[in-house]
């Protein structure tokens, strides 16, 4: 009996171990489970209207027109309200829409809009937008929607952004370990940096 109990204990332990381990194996690229929660923002910003394709009624504005710091800094940044107003003060046709009215309320009160973070990395991770944009957008000349979309998904079809990828270390590494052509028209391949301190410093 004692022996049985012992082996039972071990078996139960092993089962736990195996099941946890299986769940923790290298994640596959994207699954529907990776989509982040819907996050309520102070203004329901319509990305599809600004960045969407013309055929869907969008204006095809480059992501970096508003998220202007992505190519110059670690963070992509939220545009200051000044930037929104810069265009919207001369777009009379939508001035009385509730979202635009809300925008002008913030502007008149000179209060920044408390946007919530959609892609919030832990504090021990340093992700640098500039490096990725410079490499893929400026050096390799890929379309911006593809470059931003690697991590952010098809934002041009969303209203407020929602996380589409797991953004875990395994997911980052899955790309960094893969061989890519070093430039758009080269047969030579290489992969992204793989040192711990590139992100953890």
């Amino acid at each position, binding site marked *: *009996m*004692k022996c049985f*109990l*012992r082996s039972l*204990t*071990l078996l*139960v*332990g*092993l089962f*736990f*171990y195996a099941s*946890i*381990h299986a*769940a*923790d194996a290298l994640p596959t690229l994207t699954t529907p489970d990776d989509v*982040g*929660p819907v*996050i*309520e923002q102070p203004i329901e910003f319509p990305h599809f209207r600004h960045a969407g394709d013309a055929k869907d009624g969008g204006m095809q504005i480059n992501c970096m027109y508003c998220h202007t*710091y992505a190519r*110059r*800094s*670690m*963070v992509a*940044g*939220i545009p*200051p*309200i*000044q930037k929104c107003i810069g265009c919207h003060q001369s777009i009379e046709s939508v001035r009385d829409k509730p979202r635009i009215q809300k925008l002008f309320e*913030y*502007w008149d009160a*000179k*209060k*920044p*809009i*408390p*946007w*919530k*973070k*959609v*892609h*919030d*990395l*832990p504090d021990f991770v340093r992700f640098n937008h500039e490096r990725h944009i410079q490499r893929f957008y400026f050096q390799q000349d890929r379309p911006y929607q593809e470059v931003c979309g690697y991590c952010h998904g098809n934002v041009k079809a969303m209203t407020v952004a929602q*996380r589409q990828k*797991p*953004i*875990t270390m395994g997911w980052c590494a899955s790309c960094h370990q893969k061989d890519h052509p070093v430039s758009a028209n080269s047969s030579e391949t290489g992969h992204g940096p793989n040192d711990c301190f590139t992100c953890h410093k």
Partner: protein
Amino acid sequence: MTENDFSRRDFLKVLGWGGTAVALSGCGNTSIQDGQETVTSYVTLPSYVTPSISNYFNSTCAQCDAGCNIMGRVREGRVLKAEGNPNSPINRGRMCGLGLSGVQAHYNPDRVREPLLRTGDKGETITWDKALGLINEKLNGTKGAEIAFVTGGMSGHVQALLGNYMDELGSKNHFSYEAISPAVLRAANKKAYGVSMPRYRIDKARVVVSFGADFLGAWISPVHFSQQYAQFRKGTRPEGRGVLVQIEPKMTLTGANADRWIAVRPGTEGVLALGIINALGKAGLSIPADIAAVSHEYTTERTSKETDVSAEQIEKLAVLLKERTPSLVLAGGAAEGYAHGSQNAAAIALLNRVLGNVGKTVEASASVPFPQIAPTLGNRSSLIALNDGLAADKYKVVFSYGVNPVFSAPASMKFRDNFAKADFKVAFAQYMDETAMAADLILPLDSAMEDWATVVPEYMAAPEGAGSNAYAQMSFRQPMMEKVFPDTRGVGDILLALLKQRKADKYKDFEDFYSYLRSAVLKNKVALGGKAGDDDEVFWNETLSKGIVPLKGIAGSVSAKASAASLKLPVPTDADPSYPLRLIPAVSASMRDGRNANEPWLQESPDPLTTIVWDSWVEINPKTAAKLGIVEGDIVEIASRSGSIKTQAYLFPGIHPDAVSVPVGYGHEAMGRYARGVGANVFGMLDSVFDKETGELALNETSVKISKTGQRVIIVKEEGPAGGSQAGKQKIAVQVSADKVDLSKEV
């Protein structure tokens, strides 16, 4: 029954597997918290700001009086770190640990946040309008002579404004007080060289002999002197690598860096200086007759007997000084803190004249051309004058700013009781320190990283090159970010508001201190390096962005007029057997006089020599300790005629056997969570002995006795056993027990 025999071992196995499972499940997506924090978001953004990229703003350090020029690294509206300004002739892009801790004064959780009014034993929060109104009310009907101001060393436009306010009140009672001040040195320099603060050129000297001047740690402008010292130690210099000799009873950081460290009997530094002059004469150097007339009495034998320095050492020193010129001889606090401190300093200054250093390594300095912004230098004698006035009920209203005399006055002066005699005491304070606790009205100040000011340093360093003898500078202090606590105010703003109560018309154009400062600077555009036709806005912005305003100063001149005529050095007497040891209060590089004690980095950074953190200690020579039966960690009572403290004993071979040393700045009973109750306050137990010429408190004149209390602690320190294993099992040096070490021998 075996069914229930689920043994502990099995239980642990299950627990082990379960623990692993929990640990592994922690590696999933759980660390990402979408939608919790807000993004840094702006209404408008200046073109020079990019989120995540730092901007640098030039300013001036406020941690000590050296006035180093700094750059604040600012990101997303927060100042993160101070760096040295590379264009500064003072610190040349460098910083010290004390300066780096300035951000902790700025973000300190114990800062006073609202004006506070005391009624009886209770304090209440009041509005600024009420606070300023109350001051006005108390001042009406008070004569100018009954109003006193006690401040630290001051300079720049805040000082000018304070001067204006005092003129309006008709008060001439400005007491500028510094707990640790080179006042004796200033007076001795004035006599010996004609200027009170010449430029010392350690970098030009081939030998530096320093009588207790801790120029790498806490003396006058340590970051500046550290830069010079780096040059001095370079073998590639035309003069070759310099030799440093440090003479002091208690080893300082500079002493630890010296080629030769000589433990002198406390107080006999002047005798040693004259003995060296005599030995120089014997070695063949020509000594001016007036000096020789005095120094010939100090034969090597007599000097050696009085100072505890061997005849061989004295002769070696004389040879070293004779052969290697130019040299530089410095006098510091360890030599000056005596009733005959001025005499010691004068005797040491004679050496520079004998060796022909004046004009070579002791250079003339310049002073600023605007007397109203020139520094008002603090000293201890002004505190005595204030204390006497308070004791005689002369002052009804007392303002204090930037000083903490209740903490740093010796208990025997009874300053706390005398301060309480004034009817209404106003403290401009960043912390509720001991003086603020004794005040009736506390006005919360901005930190130095939120406030506007101009600063003129006392020690005027100059860049190399032509015209350096007429170089003077004014530095800007400017806000690096929004206020941390919205209801604090700058000292300039408060003074301006008080001035408006008196002379509304004259100051009505100035909305705040910023506009006052800006208009004062623009009015003197030409003198401050601009041209008459320059655009005001452009000039102002350029000046601020540089942070340093070079001025065409009034050039001074040095002369070798040190005279031995009036020199009177006392013959050392045997110690009083009931108080056999000499107490040397040590000024450490990070704690200084204790004004920054509530910055935890300073408490946390180990003392460079003992590596002790977060506490006071008493340094005792191992030989003395062996006689008294004291071992490391014993809690001992150190008692003087005026008071006593208890602290942990640290056996230290770098101290004269007749002396013990305790660092100052610890032992606050108020101020904040990091300062309160840490260590013991050695200021309190000092005897009231003063330098006979300058009236400065003689810090080293207190005799003490030491007794064990029976308690023992393990000292919290960084160091391991000397010669112990480091990085593996390799011995790095032969271990010598502390009582066998002789630091005066060359290693």
